[in-house]
């Protein structure tokens, strides 16, 4: 079979190669082989090893003349190798012979499938079992080279081999390759941490790496810091690490009765911190922690964490006491602003004040005259400059939101330049916008917008109120709260009618159209051809705003899913493809409901595509992608950090190919199946589809991301 490299294919225009392949794909023999593999495993589980072998031998005999003989043979041999490998684990005395048999089987698979990564990895384990480390290393290097799905598993396996051989640097380099291949996977960082356990003298290197993983893999970082604290030989590294670790566990809320278990409590910094956590309502005897504002600020983070511990939450007065103790020894705002050591410090004092304010607002009997709250609000204003100075947008938004809601609950919409609900909510929304502009997920903030619109109305600013109700309506549509969106639109309409501010009529109309369409769709009241109605033209038009694209994605996805459930596969695939197109053009998804839409629509949009082992959509807490993967911001109400939906590059290609195939009358019904692996696209055409094959070459040669294209007929 020949393969076209895409640049060449582009230049060559309609040039193509049709592989003469006899494979009638999806035929029975492969499925029979798969069933046989499953049955053989069950027999082995029952201790019937000989029967298991016999059943696979019988399956192999059936592959011989089948149309999909090659894939059938490979699966049977692979299963034979796997079962022999398994049997060797159960019967160590017979292991050498069993592993030799497994090697033969895997080698036979590789003779026909030289780049089959799982076979290479299993074969490497066989070699490890036989004590042939050099052979294992060689096949793992091959497996790394063909890791099409970028799982990084082969690299991890090779790293472990090096680790077991005591080759620290080789293991580290290989684990780092695994981390680069699969940046959202916690396994490579975990392996790196375990590797450094063998070299406590290199703790400084580990600490530097851990800092970079805190946001993504906090549990792995926790393990790493604990390891350094327990075993590192360099006193300076331990002192720095204890600050890193305490700050991490406090921010994560991982402070409880077992937090210090397993750590060397004969070391004063840890002993003092543990003593304080055991008795957080008493100001700590500072000791080591008193030396400088950085240490005091980190220790104060523990105060915040203990105030949010379950036993404190059950007794608000106790939580308040813990917060007050924290405020006592936490450095003042001036330290955060002017002390160079504190330049990058987490804003502990601000967070303590914010938590105290929230607690007092929730528990009015703790502060009947609101004197403490007023004091804290002043304190927050005094210190908020720190968050601005460090450009910590997340902190800035938190404080504006806290203050905005606090003022709004008291109906304090005006007064001072910033001591009012309007100013604070406006800034909360604006800062959220800045965060989205720098690549974080879009936050709808529908409640804040609704609250602010009401505030504008109360202080007699109808134009702003109307505009903000429209923003709120759009945000409610983002969060699938259609009834609330219609209420907000009603408010906008009411204000416009009463005060003569009709400037946003077009926006109002289009939002209402979207809302009513979505309402009817949810209630299953839309006629089958509704999408063709003039009022729904917005579905087909190129959307100019991200908000409009999000709505288009939602409606088309819901439509596709309704058609799927209504047994209309063609229409479902068409609308799923359109939803997928809409998704490609937007920046963020809103809520896990959108994530579910994406996960359900993708198989419809890529129907008939083989995408290999790895899932098509993953959720990660970093936007970094590799090899054509696509990251979209994902707003999740419960998430404590930005989240991203990462769509695998091969799935994106499959979706684009599916859309082009569906759009081409010449290709309709002529493509049996496609397979995408690391950008290599195989298109399996029906037998005798000569013209369609030419058309496929012309249509698919320039699909973005495709590295090579093979057209296979038969």
């Amino acid at each position: 079979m020949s393969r076209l490299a895409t640049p060449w294919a582009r230049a060559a225009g309609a040039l193509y190669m049709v592989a003469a392949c006899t494979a009638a794909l999806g035929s029975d023999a492969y499925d029979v082989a798969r069933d046989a593999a499953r049955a053989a495993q069950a027999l082995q589980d029952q201790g019937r090893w000989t029967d298991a072998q016999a059943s696979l031998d019988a399956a192999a005999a059936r592959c011989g003349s089948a149309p999909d003989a090659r894939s059938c043979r490979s699966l049977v041999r692979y299963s034979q190798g796997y079962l022999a490998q398994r049997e060797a684990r159960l019967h160590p005395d017979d292991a050498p012979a069993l592993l030799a048999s497994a090697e033969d089987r895997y080698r036979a698979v590789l003779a026909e499938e030289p780049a089959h990564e799982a076979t290479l990895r299993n074969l490497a384990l066989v070699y490890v079992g036989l004590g042939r480390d050099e052979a294992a290393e060689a096949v793992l290097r091959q497996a790394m080279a063909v890791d099409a799905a970028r799982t990084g598993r082969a690299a991890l396996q090779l790293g472990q081999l090096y680790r077991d051989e005591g080759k620290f640097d080789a293991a580290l380099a290989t684990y780092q390759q695994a981390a680069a291949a699969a940046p959202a996977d916690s396994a490579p960082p975990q392996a790196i941490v375990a590797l450094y356990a063998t070299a406590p003298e290199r703790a400084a290197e580990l600490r530097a790496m851990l800092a970079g993983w805190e946001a993504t893999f906090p549990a792995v970082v926790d393990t790493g810091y604990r390891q350094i604290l327990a075993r590192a030989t360099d006193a300076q590294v331990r002192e720095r690490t204890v600050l890193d670790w305490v700050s991490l566990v406090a921010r994560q809320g991982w402070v409880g009765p077992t937090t210090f278990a397993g750590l060397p409590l004969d070391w004063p910094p840890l002993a003092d911190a543990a003593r304080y956590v055991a008795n957080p309502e008493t100001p700590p005897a500072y000791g080591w922690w008193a030396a400088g504002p950085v240490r005091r600020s980190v220790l104060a983070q523990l105060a915040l964490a203990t105030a949010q511990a379950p036993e404190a939450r059950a007794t608000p007065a106790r939580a308040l006491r813990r917060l007050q103790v924290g405020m006592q020894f936490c450095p003042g705002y001036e330290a955060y602003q002017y002390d160079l050591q504190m330049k990058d410090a987490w804003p502990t004092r601000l967070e303590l004040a914010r938590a105290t304010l929230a607690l007092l607002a929730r528990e009015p009997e703790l502060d009947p005259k609101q004197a403490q709250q007023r004091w804290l609000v002043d304190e927050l204003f005094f210190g908020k400059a720190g968050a601005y100075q460090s450009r910590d947008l997340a902190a800035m938004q938190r404080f504006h939101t806290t203050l905005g809601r606090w003022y709004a609950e008291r109906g304090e919409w005006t007064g001072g330049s910033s001591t009012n609900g309007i100013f604070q909510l406006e800034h909360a929304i604006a800062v959220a916008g800045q965060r989205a502009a720098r690549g974080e997920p879009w936050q709808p903030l529908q409640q804040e917008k609704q609250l602010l619109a009401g505030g504008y109305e109360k202080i007699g600013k109808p134009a702003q109120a109307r505009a903000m109700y429209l923003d709120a309506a759009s945000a409610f549509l983002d969060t699938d709260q259609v009834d609330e969106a219609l209420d907000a639109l009603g408010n906008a309409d009411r204000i416009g009618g009463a005060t003569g501010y009709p400037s946003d009529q077009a926006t109002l109309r289009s939002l209402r159209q979207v809302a009513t369409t979505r309402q009817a769709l949810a209630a299953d009241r839309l006629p089958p051809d509704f999408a063709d109605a003039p009022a729904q033209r917005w579905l087909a038009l190129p959307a100019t705003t991200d908000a409009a694209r999000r709505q288009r994605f939602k409606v088309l996805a819901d439509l596709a899913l309704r058609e799927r459930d209504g047994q209309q596969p063609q229409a479902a695939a068409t609308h799923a493809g359109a939803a997928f197109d809409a998704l490609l053009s937007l920046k963020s998804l809103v809520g896990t409901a959108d994530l579910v839409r994406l996960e359900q629509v993708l198989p419809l949009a890529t129907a008939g595509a083989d995408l290999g082992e790895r899932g098509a959509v993953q959720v990660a807490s970093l936007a970094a992608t590799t090899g054509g993967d696509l990251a979209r911001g994902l707003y999740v109400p419960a998430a404590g950090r930005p989240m991203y939906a990462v769509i695998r590059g091969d799935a994106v290609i499959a979706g684009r190919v599916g859309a082009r195939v569906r759009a081409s009358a010449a290709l309709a019904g002529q493509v049996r199946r496609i397979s995408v692996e690391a950008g290599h696209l195989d298109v399996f055409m029906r037998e005798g589809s000569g013209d369609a094959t030419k058309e496929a070459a012309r249509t698919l040669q320039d699909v973005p991301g495709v590295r090579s294209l093979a057209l296979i007929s038969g």
Partner: protein
Amino acid sequence: MNQFSRTLLGVLAAGVLLPAGAVDRPAVGVAFDLNVPRWQGQFGARRDELQAKVAAQVAAWMSQQMGFADFDAGSAGPQRLVLHLDVAPDAGAHQFKETQLRLELADVAAAAPLVWRFRSDERYAEPTGGVDAFAQEVALRLVDVDKQALVRQVLSKVPIASEAALWKDPVGWVIPFRKTDLCMDFKSMLRIENMLPSGAGPVLKEFLARASGDFAPREAAHAPSALRGRLFTEPVPAQDGLADLGRARPELVAVRAVYVTEYLPLQPCSKPVPPERVDFRGAPR
């Protein structure tokens, strides 16, 4: 007692105690309990469906993270792990309530509940998005569980084995699993309950032990092949009763239960990829 006879006694004890074949990991059932009235009302008749879905997701996540037990939403085993979604206890009558996740083993006293935040009070009124979306949201919050505490406070109450072989040179236990069976790396910590002989008859003694190697004694001929390659664990020094253990005749020591108290996952777990996870259809590459 010379080294040979010590070894022989160890072998005798081991031969009696450990089975030759594979031992199953403990089965832990997983359940989810939606305990927030607002959301209970919203899900209504679909609450059971939601609870089942989340339980399945939690079981899958736990299986991925904690290789020393077999988590299954449908399991009816003696151990049942329950994830509760509650209103925070200090939410009071406030309109917007913080919600929290709480993980516990049913009917087992834990040192303290393992609790972490679900949604802040500011996001309490956000819609759930339906069964699938809400199940996803809960699943995404699992990443912020304190894994150290999850093992120490909760899962350390689940016995992973009710047998182990005492070895005398050096003193330690061979547990009935290989490290790849549990995906457990060396330096993981276990708690081992033993019935030790005493003047008053057998008495219960607990020891903490660290996984330190794959059992492969020098005098291989004297060790049953069933033990070879299993995890060998050595007691943490300076524990009460350790001297008694060192003096005890192995055949008179009965291991009652083995628990994991500190889990270091083995990465990669290095198990062969099973046939059901491979696909040979498509063009050869």
